[in-house]
Structure formats: C-alpha cells, structure tokens
C-alpha cells in the first residue's frame, strides 16, 4: 500500500497531508511564541520602576531604531505578498513567473536579515555606563574613531585605558511612557549637547556594558525573540529557495505536488510575517 493523500486532498477533510501537518506545526509555533510573549509581559510588568538611562535594570523605552524597524516590517509584508503571488503563478501554470516572484521574496528575506544584523551590530556597539557618583549614561564609545563591540569594564581595564571617550546619547530623543516622570539627567551641556563627546575616567566607572542580552531583561527578551524569529526567516528562506532553484524537475513530473509544497512553505512564511507584525509594535513602539 502507498501512503494516500500526499498530493490529493482527502475527501472528508478536504486537505492533503502536508497541509494538516503544517497547520499543526504552526499551532505549536503559536504556543512557542505565546510563551515568549507571556514572558515579555511578565518581565515588563515586573520590571523595577527605574528610569532611563539606567537601562540595565529598568525597562528601556525607545532604544530601538523605529524607522529601520518600520522599513523592515514593510520588507516582510512585501515578501508575503510575493510568496502568495508566486503560489498563484504556479496555480496558473506559469513556472517562470513563479520563479520571478520567489526571487523577490528571497531578496526580501535576505534584506530583512541584513537589516536585522545591522541593528544587532548597532546594539552591540552601544553602551550603558554607570559612574561612581550614581549617575549613568548611554552612548557609543569612541576608541580610535569607532565603537567596539561587546566591551565590559574588564576589557577597558585589561587594555589599561585611563579614560574612554563616549558620544553620549541625548535622552530627549527617547520617549517616555506617559505618566512616567522624566529623570533629572545628569550630563553636561544641556539639551544642545547632541552626541556630545565626553571623556570619562576609567576610575569613575563602576559598570560598562554593551546592549547585549545580559544587560537587562528587555534586551534579553528582545534578542531572544528576534533571534528566534530570524531563525524562522532563515529556515523559511532556505526551503523556499530550494524549490525556486531546484523545483523545476518536480514541476515537470508532478506540478500539483510542487504547488502544494509552495502553498505549505507559503503558509509558514506568512506565519513568520504574522509573528513580526506583533513583535514590531511590542518591541519598538510600546
């Protein structure tokens, strides 16, 4: 006996096997991301009522780059449209058109990942520094003209630097949640000190860390969720890419099967898009 309904739908359920499978898989993904979103809420509600710029212990607001995030959202949305168009092209029997749409999708996927990496790098070179006098600043280090990644206070002492130059962020560029008192910001230069460079003595520093997962619960959950999401993008792109470039043979022998594969792959892709639709406002905007 052969396994039935691998291509043709089963009459009483109206579905072929892989479609049932992918929806079940997506159901489990819903619970996976559901747990992460629950954690997000719990961590956020439980965060200390600290204030910026002590992003390490409080819940920092507005530290992510909104324009870039918006652009990346658009990239994913477009890729979703092209995936569904690619599938429609197969349904219409047009393999060449399918490949074209798919190519756009893949470019979008690659673009998304590149932009995300850029953002990650941006965070890894962005620092929070706490000082002996109890104040704290955030900003980029300036070591020979560029900001290194992943430094800690230990790195600075190990390199025997007597002081570090910091381009301090302007706190006003960040938005405070309504009702939260704006802190008295302790840094010189007032409101016009846009990216004021400041020399800080190593001996004054009690804590120095880049915006890495260990820096605070916000970063921890931000990196975990976006990284997991990124992995999904990568996985989806690999599968779709495989069919784009190596699907011709299946198309010639069993076009309906290929169409189904693309439908299933597309469902996964849309789900990844859907997760981002929630991740974006939750991480960047709120």
């Amino acid at each position, binding site marked *: 006996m052969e396994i039935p309904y691998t291509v043709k739908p089963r009459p009483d359920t109206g579905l072929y096997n892989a479609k049932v499978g992918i929806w079940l898989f997506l*159901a489990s993904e819903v619970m996976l991301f559901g747990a992460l979103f629950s954690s997000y809420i719990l961590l956020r509600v439980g965060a200390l009522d600290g204030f910026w710029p002590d992003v390490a212990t409080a819940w920092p607001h507005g530290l992510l780059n909104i324009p870039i995030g918006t652009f990346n959202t658009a990239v994913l949305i477009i890729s979703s449209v092209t995936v569904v168009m690619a599938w429609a092209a197969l349904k219409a029997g047009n393999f060449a058109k399918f490949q074209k749409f798919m190519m756009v999708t893949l470019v979008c996927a690659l673009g998304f990942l590149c932009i995300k990496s850029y953002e990650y790098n941006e965070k890894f070179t962005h620092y929070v520094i706490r000082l002996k006098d109890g104040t704290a600043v955030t900003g980029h280090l300036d070591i020979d003209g560029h900001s290194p990644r992943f430094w800690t206070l230990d790195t600075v002492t190990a390199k025997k630097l007597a002081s570090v130059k910091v381009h301090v962020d302007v706190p006003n560029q960040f938005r405070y949640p309504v009702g939260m008192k704006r802190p008295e910001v302790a840094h010189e230069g007032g409101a016009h000190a846009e990216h004021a460079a400041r020399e800080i003595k190593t001996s004054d520093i009690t804590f120095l860390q880049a915006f890495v997962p260990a820096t605070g619960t916000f970063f921890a959950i931000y990196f975990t969720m976006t990284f997991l999401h990124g992995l999904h993008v990568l996985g989806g792109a690999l599968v779709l890419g495989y069919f784009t470039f190596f699907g011709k043979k299946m198309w010639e022998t069993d076009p309906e099967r290929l169409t189904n594969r693309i439908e299933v792959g597309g469902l996964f892709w849309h789900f990844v898009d859907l997760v981002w639709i929630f991740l974006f406002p939750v991480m960047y905007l709120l």
Partner: protein
Amino acid sequence: MHTATTHAPSHGHAHGGAHDHHEPGFWSKYIFSTDHKMIGIQYGITSLIFLFFGFLLMLAMRQQLAYPGKALPIVGQFLAKTLGDDMAKDGVMQADLYNAFGAMHGTIMVFLAIVPLAFGAFGNYVTPLQIGAPDMAFPRLNMASYHLYFWGGAVMLASFFIPGGAAKSGWTSYSPLATLADRDHLVNGQTLWLIGMVLLITSSLLGAVNFITTIIQLRAKGMTWMRLPFFVWAQFVTGFLLLLAFPPLEAAGLMQLADNVLKTSFFLPTGLVTNAGPVPVSGGGSPLLWQYLFWFLAHPEVYVLILPAMGVVSEIIANNTRKPLWGYKSMVYAALGIGFLAFIVWAHHMYLTGMGTKISTFFQTTTMMISIPSVIILTALFISLWGGSIRFNTPMLFALAFLPMFGIGGLTGLPLGFNASDIYLHDSYYVIGHFHYVVAPGTIFGLFAGVYFWYPKATGRYMSEILGKIHFAGSFLCMNLIFAPMFVQGLKGMSRRMYDGGSTYFGNGVDPAILDLNKTITHSAILLGLFQIPFIVNFFLSLWNGKKVESDNPWQATTLDWQTPTPPPHGNFATEPVVYRGPYEYSVPGASKDFIQQGQPG
C-alpha cells in the same frame, strides 16, 4: 514503495532523499529506516534500556537512603573512579551525586523512558496498523523524531561525565538554583540538560505533528471517528497534549539556556546574593516565570504518561473479557475532557509559591474537575469486566493490576489537589508515592501488558507465559512494597529529595520509624530489580524460542492490527482494508465466532 513519494512539511527537506534504496542494507534497514514499525521498535528498545538505566540510578539512591554515608556496594569504586571524589568519594555517594542522580532519574524516566515507550514505540507500531494505514503520514519526519530523541538522550548521558557532573536541580530545574548551581563551569550539566531537552522536545513535537496528521488523514475507508479503537483515541489526545504543551517549555528552556550561558536574567530577580557574594547579573527577572512555563508543560505531560497506558489497557481488557468496552463513547469524551482540562490545572504544583485565594480556588476547582474524567474511564473499564469471560494471560494480568494501582495513585492526587491539605503534604514523600503509583505500577504495568500483547504481532512468537507470570507476581508485590510505605513516610512529615534519608530532622516530632521504612523500600526495590530478570530473559529468548503463533490473529482480536500478515511487511496491508463496524465486536449474539473483525465484511 518509494519513501520519496512522501514529504515532510516545509522543514523536512534538510534530511535529503539519500535513503531510497531498493535493497535495504543494514543502515537503512535498522538505523535510517522510515518504516513506522522499525522506528517503533527502535523507540521501544532504546526506551526500555533507558527505563532500566533510570531504575539503576534510583537503586543507587535508594541504597544511600537506607544506609546513609556507607559506600555503595558493587558500583561504589567504579563511580569514584569515573566521576571523581566530588561525586563518590571512596565509593560513598555524595550529596551532589544524589541530586544529579535524582534529577536524571526523573528526567530519564519521564522524557527518555515512558514517553518514548508509550508514544514513540506503541504509538508508532500500533497506531497505523489499527487505523488501516500503510505507514505514518510523514515517514522521514518520523525517522527524524527518533534520531532527535536518540541524540537528546546521548547528550543527557554525556552530561554525567563533564566537570561538575549532570544536572542536579531536580527534574523540575527550578531557577535560580538551576542557573546558580554550577556557575563556575561554563558548560555544565544543566546546560547539557537544557540542550538535551530542546532536542527531546523538538522530537516530540515532530512526532505529535506526525501522529495527529496520520490519525486525521490516513484512516482506512469506513474507519469513522467513533470506530477508532480507544488506543488510537488515547494517542490522538496525547498528540495534542504534546503539540501544545511542549512549546512553552521549549521557550522556557531556551531562556534558561540564555540565563546559564549568556548570563541573562530571565528567571533571576534583582538583588540575588549567594554566600559567595552578589550574583553579577542585571536581575529584574522572575523565578516564578520558569515555574509557570514548566508546569504548563509538566502537568499535561503527566497525562501524556498515563493516557497511552490507558489505551493499551483498554485494548487488552476488551480482548480478554471477550466483550465490548462498556461505555466506549463516554471513555472517548472523558479522554478529550482530560486533554482539555490538562491545560488549566498546572498551578496545583505551585500552591505554596504564595498564591492568593482567587487563583488557587480556580486551580483547585479545575483539579477536582479533571479527576472526574479519570473516574469515568476507570469506572468504564471496571464495569467492562462485568459479564465477561475473562482469560488470565500475562497481558491481562498486567492490565487488570493497572486498574487498582492507577486508582491508588489517582485517589492520592485528591488530597494534593486541595490546596489546604497540600500545605501539609507538599513536597513530602506522599507526593512521591502519589505519582509513582500512577507511573510505576500504573503506566509501567500498562506498557508491560502492551509488550506481552503485541510481541506476537511484531515477532511471530509468543513470550513465555510462565516467565511472564513470575514477572507479574514479583513486580506487583514489590511495587506495592516500595510505594505504599512512602505514603506513611509522607504523612509522618518526611520531605522528598533528602540525601540523608531525613536523618537531620529526626527527634523533632519526626518519627524515627521512617528510617526503617527506608530500608524496607530499598530492599523491595532491589527485589523488584531481580524480578525483571525473567522479563529480560523472556524478551530476548522468545525471539528464538518462543512458541510460534498459529495465525495472524493469535488473541482472536477484532482490531485491524491483527488483520495484517505477521510480522507486517512494509506497507502493512496486502490490500487496502475497509472497515465495517466498531472496534470491539466481541461475543455478538448470534455470531458464529466470539469476535468479528473490523475489516470483515457483512
């Protein structure tokens, strides 16, 4: 049949189509097989070995409990040599080793022994046969599940041998302990535990997708939902439990992994100070978050442990009473009810974390509600005995014993389910007694029954009845001698996870008599081990020596699995089966034989 004709959903392609030979060699036949029966057998052997290994870990612990501070006989020196002085100085089990063995006993028994045996082995072998399918819906995904399981197990085992030893924070791995326990080793037992768990969870998830799809899509013609054998229903519900309950633990596992490796603070609150000084983390996390996510999995998980066993027992009871299951439909609805309620009772493990009245009332109400479907299933099985013509073969003996054993385990869940009485019983040996009654003489007996029952289908030979009955009688006696005294210990106030068997607490209202009980339990456990020898001998010897089956249907059973050739070939059925009736048409009035097979026309 070409395996290439079937594909996994979107993800399965990584595994290529390389194993598509016509003449299967050793590797593709035994290791990279995509045939559900071979995969089922792989699962079965592996998980039985893990079951035995989990038991050996516990024997060492029991020895320590009965004779605290004395060198372990036989293995003591070996452990001292392989694991070092921190773990077994001079062959004496150290506290760290006790905790490591305890955590690994729990983990191995639950995730590497019972679930793979109940779901992976029986589910894989029997489900497609019973629904009249040629294989699972996604054979290569099935193979991937087994391999993930195997590697998950390998990682767990490897963790014994790394510096610091295996995970030692209980199978529950509560943070912050799980994160702080071994912080000076970058790769520690807990890290490997988490990696192993992620592999095992992924394996179970893929398995669940596969099972549910198979049951929905591949039922033979005429196999309507209400004609499914109860075993299949049990597997179906189990599949959903795994599918929806496991992902939160996967998420939690990844977060704890980040806590351990990347030094994040998901589960670490602000202001942690250990005896070594302040913990250098940002803080701001929540230790309870781990528990929420863990128990969101772990409560449904316990029904994963019991439902397949109930399924096996139901099949065997119907077969050996020679009559239909009483109240089949209400059993099905009860199983669905358990599946649903299982997701909303989890916080009964957390009553004493500081719960308010409202939320704990909610959870104890649901906990009481979930006991009702269990009562319904058990009652239906009891009443099924009435009017039967009972054959007492080995599978039936184990199946019958399952009923009161599960009864004791389930009933002792009630005082734990009331939060007020849980105040006294929480984390005592009463809890240990409760769940072992369910999983050990309960589930294990159910699964033993299944092994004896389907062995003739898989091999074409019976297992020996005499050895089987010795195995049964000895196991039944010993299991009760092991677990019944635990209730007494618990009620007398003895806490679990006590390396010294509770001796620190003696003389303070704690009755020293529990020390003697520790000895009783340990001796019974050793005896229990000895009574497994007939089983192991029987299992292997019967492959060559067992009595040959006279037909494809040696137990005169009704379900489709007995309508295949013995052992079933690749593709299972010679011709596509068609189903004409319900699953348990035994002793139909007026029929010429006392059973009518599901696939028999007319």
